[in-house]
C-alpha cells in the first residue's frame, strides 16, 4: 500500500464512515429489524453449540476483505519498548484458538458439570458490542464508534493502533496489527503502531439486509438476533422455563451480546482458558458509570459558579454603597 493510496484511503474512509451512519438507517429484514432505532442484540445459547467452528469460518470468509495487508519491513519503533504485533504471516493468519486481527471470533471450550454429568461445552466469543462501549467513548480519534443499531466498529482507515481500546475493554477484545493504517503516513516511528481489529457484527451485511455471517452459517442456530428488548425477554423466558443463566444483560452496564448457559458463569469462567485474545466471563461493572455521574455534576458547576459570583458582586456592591454612605 503506497502512502498516496493510504491518504486516498483515509478520505474514502471518511466517506464510508458517513455512509455507515446512513447505512445503519437502511431498513432491515424482520429477523434483524430494529424498532424505532432500537439496538440490535444477539442471544447465544451455549447449550446448542457443538464447537464445529462453522461461525469462525463464515466470519473469516465474509470479512476477509477487511483484514490487514501490512507493509513490510515495519517502521523501526521508538522507543524500543513499543512492540510489533504481527499476525500477517501464514501461521498467524491461521490462528483460530484466540482473537487476532485475522480471527474476530473464536470458540472457547470448558468442561463443567451439567445435571450431575461432566460435560464439555463450547461457545463462540467475540466483541460484546456494549451499550455504552468504553472503546468508542475513550478512543481519542473517533476511530472506534458505536452505530445507532448497537454495533461498535473500529474504522481501520482512522485507527492509529495505540491499543487504548484494548486496554479499556473489559474483555480485551480488539487486536493489533502493526504495519498498516494511517500512522504510516504521519509519524510511523514515534506515534501509533498499526490498526486495531475486532468483530463489527457484519455491519455492512446488516446494512444490506443480510444476517451476520456467524448467525447465518451456524448449523445449530446457536445465535439469534433482534431488537434488544425482545432478546432480553427471550433470555428471561429461558431463565424462567429452563433454569439457564444470563451473561451480558447487565455486564459493563449492558451489552448487545447475551449468553445463556446451563451453568453459572463463575463455573464457566473457572473452566475456560484465559489469556490474550481469550475473553473471560468475569462479572464486569459499568466502566463508564463514574464518568456518567460526573457528567451530571457538570450541569451543576456553572450554577454554583453563578451563585458564588452573584454573592460576591452583591457583597462588593453593598460595601461600595456603605462606603459611599459613610463618605456623604
Amino acid at each position: 500500500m503506497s502512502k498516496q493510496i493510504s491518504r486516498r484511503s483515509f478520505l474514502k474512509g471518511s466517506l464510508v464512515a458517513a455512509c455507515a451512519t446512513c447505512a445503519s438507517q437502511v431498513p432491515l429484514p424482520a429477523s434483524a429489524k430494529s424498532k424505532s432505532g432500537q439496538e440490535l442484540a444477539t442471544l447465544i445459547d451455549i447449550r446448542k453449540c457443538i464447537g464445529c467452528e462453522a461461525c469462525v469460518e463464515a466470519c473469516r470468509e465474509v470479512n476477509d476483505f477487511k483484514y490487514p495487508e501490512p507493509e513490510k519491513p515495519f517502521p523501526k519503533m521508538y522507543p524500543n519498548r513499543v512492540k510489533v504485533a504481527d499476525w500477517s504471516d501464514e501461521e498467524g493468519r491461521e490462528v483460530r484458538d484466540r482473537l487476532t486481527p485475522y480471527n474476530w471470533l473464536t470458540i472457547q471450550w470448558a468442561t463443567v458439570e451439567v445435571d450431575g454429568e461432566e460435560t464439555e461445552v463450547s461457545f463462540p466469543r467475540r466483541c460484546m458490542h456494549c451499550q455504552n462501549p468504553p472503546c468508542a467513548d475513550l478512543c481519542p480519534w473517533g476511530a472506534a464508534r458505536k452505530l445507532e443499531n448497537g454495533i461498535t466498529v473500529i474504522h481501520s482507515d482512522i485507527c492509529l493502533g495505540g491499543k487504548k481500546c484494548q486496554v479499556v475493554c473489559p474483555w480485551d477484545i480488539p487486536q493489533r496489527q502493526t504495519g498498516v493504517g494511517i500512522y504510516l503516513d504521519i509519524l510511523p516511528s514515534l506515534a501509533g503502531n498499526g490498526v486495531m481489529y475486532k468483530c463489527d457484527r457484519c455491519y455492512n451485511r446488516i446494512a444490506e439486509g443480510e444476517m451476520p455471517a456467524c448467525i447465518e452459517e451456524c448449523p445449530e442456530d446457536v445465535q439469534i438476533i433482534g431488537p434488544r428488548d425482545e432478546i432480553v425477554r427471550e433470555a428471561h423466558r429461558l431463565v424462567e422455563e429452563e433454569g439457564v443463566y444470563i451473561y451480558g444483560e447487565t455486564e459493563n452496564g449492558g451489552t448487545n451480546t447475551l449468553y445463556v448457559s446451563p451453568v453459572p458463569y463463575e463455573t464457566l469462567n473457572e473452566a475456560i482458558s484465559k489469556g490474550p485474545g481469550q475473553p473471560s466471563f468475569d462479572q464486569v461493572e459499568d466502566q463508564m458509570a463514574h464518568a456518567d455521574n460526573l457528567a451530571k455534576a457538570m450541569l451543576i458547576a456553572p450554577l454554583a459558579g453563578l451563585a458564588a459570583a452573584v454573592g460576591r458582586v452583591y457583597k462588593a456592591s453593598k460595601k461600595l454603597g456603605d462606603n459611599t454612605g459613610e463618605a456623604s
Partner: protein
Amino acid sequence: MTSEATPNAFSELTYFKPVYLFLLFVLGLTGFGQMPIFKRYYIADIPGLGWLADFYATHYIHYIGAIVIFGFFVYAAVIYWGLMRRRFQLTGAAYIRIAILALITITGIFRVLKNLPDVVFSPLFTMVIDISHLAFMMFLMIFGILFMVLKKGWLVEK
C-alpha cells in the same frame, strides 16, 4: 488571568491567574493522557506519575477538572461583568482566548454527551469533535505562548 493595570481593588486579580493556569495544566495533562503516549514515552514510569497511564483515572480527573473550570468560567464572567468592567476592559488577546476556550468547551460538552449511554452521534461528527477538541487545545497553547511573549494580558485599565 493577568492584568495590565495595577491590581489593587479586586482580590480576583491576584488569584484568577494561578487558578486558571492550574486548571488548564490539569486539563491539558489529563487530556493528552487520553492518548496512549505517557506509557510509551516512559513518563508514567516516573515515580508518582503511574496514574498517567491509567486511562480511566485520567478520564475522571479530566471530568473533575472540567466541572471546576465550568464553575470558574461562569464565576469569572460574572465578576468581570458585575464588578470589573467599570474599571477594566478586555484586550484583543482576551477575546481570542475566550473564543478558543469557548470552542474547547463546546467540543468538550459534545464529547461528554457522546460518552453518555443512549447518546449516539454519527461517526463523522464523533471524529470531528474528538479531533477538534484536541486541535483547539493546541491552538490555545500556541496563542498562550504567543501572548506571553508579547505580554498581552486579559485586562487593560480604561
